[in-house]
């Protein structure tokens, strides 16, 4: 393999991920955590930052954070504290964010990710808990912040519990970053702590990216990339950014430490205006909240409440169902899909592997086309199991089954009913098929001769012709046998 230009450079990525927790109430007050409500109808003195109001920590949010930390193999701090991060911004009611600083709830964890790059261990620096801000909308101009005339603030989101996960700079490619985000999403989903919807902002990924010449020991200039709204855009943004930085280094341009925003449409990143002053957040211990010192019993209780995590589930899928890693990868990409598969496998009388093919190939395509999660699909695991059984018994052909699946997906009706309605049955009557086979051989003498001459290749073409004439209802195995007996033996 020849040395490519990119091999001469080394990319280093650290990720900072914010996860909105799915709790009933906000982090420090009793306002409900909901989305899409009328503006400022989910606020109270606490989350509006009214004078005299005080925060009280949400127990479930603290426990969710500990769950995430434990699932990421972190240590739980013996002594943890909330700090105030002070800066002015109109979407922040108190003009400080209650966050964590040098004493996060979880620290020193790791996650293993696998893919085309092999296996990479990504260190988790910290897992901490904080509160979300409100939302600004910008009025006038193009409706974007930079040329708007004024802005409007809605504090419904202010105070929603947010977990921040910071990785070590152990990621070296866009592919690894994607794999990490996918793995983290699956893990968070299995814990049931968040909706993990990147498009809706319940999972937000920022990346610190730097590029340096291979073999150099000094770190490259760190650029923070924001506004990546899907796993795909994480990959695209990092690919763009690493290429941009590489080119800059090649041409001797000086890179600057800055924040860049990813633009979905153009697939590029662009610089935010350089900050006039470096940030000085004046962190100090939040005097309105007391420290956390989780007891061993508390940690143990949370540990024992953890569900089977994606990595363990993957291992079990290989052992229990005899699946290959590619199939396992797809099936465990979300907890709901893995659950769905297990339900279908349990309902199915044959080898689970057969159900897998239907899920990984056909169902997955339908889900992608519809843009929905398996949980939202009309088809049930038991219905899929019965569909595969119809094929097994020879009642319908595989090709017919694909059509039936399409209908099931669209309507949620049972496979038997759809097959009957469509008048589907498989022609397995040798006598009837024999005539069609003879007809096809007669109409394609050249192809038939080739097969007779020992070239088996075009046999498939002849099978196809038979299927066409029977409108797909012929049993393809039987057609194959008949053709062979006439031409080969």
């Amino acid at each position, binding site marked *: 393999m020849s040395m490519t230009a990119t091999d001469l450079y080394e990319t280093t990525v650290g990720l900072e991920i914010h996860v909105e927790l799915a*709790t*009933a*109430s906000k982090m420090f*007050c*009793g*306002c*409900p*955590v909901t989305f899409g409500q*009328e*503006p*400022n*109808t*989910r*606020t*109270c*003195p606490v989350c*509006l930052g009214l004078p005299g109001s005080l925060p*009280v*920590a*949400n*127990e*479930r949010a*603290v426990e969710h954070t500990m769950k995430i930390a434990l699932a990421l193999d972190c240590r739980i701090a013996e002594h943890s*504290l909330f700090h105030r991060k*002070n*800066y*002015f*911004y*109109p979407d922040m009611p108190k*003009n400080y964010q209650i966050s964590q600083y040098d004493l996060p709830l979880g620290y020193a964890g790791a996650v293993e990710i696998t893919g085309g790059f092999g296996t990479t261990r990504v260190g988790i620096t910290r897992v901490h808990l904080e509160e979300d801000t409100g939302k*600004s*909308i*910008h009025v006038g101009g193009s409706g974007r*912040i*930079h040329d*708007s*005339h*004024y*802005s*409007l*603030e*809605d*504090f419904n989101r202010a105070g929603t519990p947010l977990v921040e996960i910071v990785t070590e700079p152990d990621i070296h490619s866009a592919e690894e970053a994607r794999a990490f985000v996918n793995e983290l999403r699956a893990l968070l989903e299995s814990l049931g702590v968040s909706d993990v919807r990147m498009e809706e902002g319940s999972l937000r990924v920022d990346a610190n990216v730097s590029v340096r010449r291979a073999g150099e020991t000094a770190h490259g200039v760190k650029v923070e990339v924001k506004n990546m709204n899907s796993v795909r855009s994480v990959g695209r943004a990092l690919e763009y950014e690493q290429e941009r930085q590489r080119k800059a280094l090649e041409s001797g341009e000086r890179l600057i430490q800055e924040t860049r925003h990813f633009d979905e449409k153009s697939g590029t990143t662009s610089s*935010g*205006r*350089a*900050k*006039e*002053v470096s*940030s*000085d957040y004046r962190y*100090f*211990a939040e*005097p309105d*909240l*007391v*420290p*956390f*010192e*989780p007891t061993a019993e508390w940690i143990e209780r949370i540990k024992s409440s953890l569900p089977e995590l994606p990595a363990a589930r993957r291992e079990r899928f290989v052992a229990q169902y005899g699946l290959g890693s590619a199939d396992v990868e797809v099936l465990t990409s979300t907890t709901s899909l893995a659950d769905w598969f297990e339900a279908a496998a349990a309902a199915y009388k044959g080898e689970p592997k057969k159900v897998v093919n239907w899920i990984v190939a056909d169902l997955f395509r339908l889900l992608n086309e519809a843009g929905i999660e398996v949980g939202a699909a009309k088809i049930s695991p038991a219905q899929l199991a019965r569909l595969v059984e119809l094929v097994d018994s020879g009642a319908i052909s595989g090709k017919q089954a694909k059509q039936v699946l399409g209908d099931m997906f669209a309507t949620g009706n049972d496979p038997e009913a759809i097959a009957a309605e469509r008048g589907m049955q498989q022609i397995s009557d040798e006598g009837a098929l024999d005539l069609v086979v003879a007809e096809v051989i007669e109409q394609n003498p050249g192809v038939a001769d080739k097969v007779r001459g020992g070239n088996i290749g075009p046999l498939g073409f002849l099978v196809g012709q038979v299927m066409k004439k029977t409108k797909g209802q012929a049993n393809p195995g039987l057609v194959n046998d008949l053709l062979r007996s006439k031409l080969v033996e």
Partner: protein
Amino acid sequence: MPIDRAAVDHVARLARLDLSEQERRRMSDELGKILEHAERIQALALDGVEPTSHAVAIRNVMRPDEARPSLTQEEALSNAPVAEGGRFSVPRILEEEE
């Protein structure tokens, strides 16, 4: 010893205080004097002394995750200097603001 003017300007910016020229001059003087008095603690042997951030030794205070009624939109906005469409209105936000 007065604190220097650059520091006064920096701190006034961090604190979002649009101080007049005269106020800045006076701050530099007065803050200097107060800090001079505070300097007395620099003489104390404080190595190994833990900082106290809270006057109570309470730990692990939490509330159950239960939703409670919020204010109505009208109540939330009742003290707003300027509101529009159920939201608080503010002059345009410059990007370096953060």
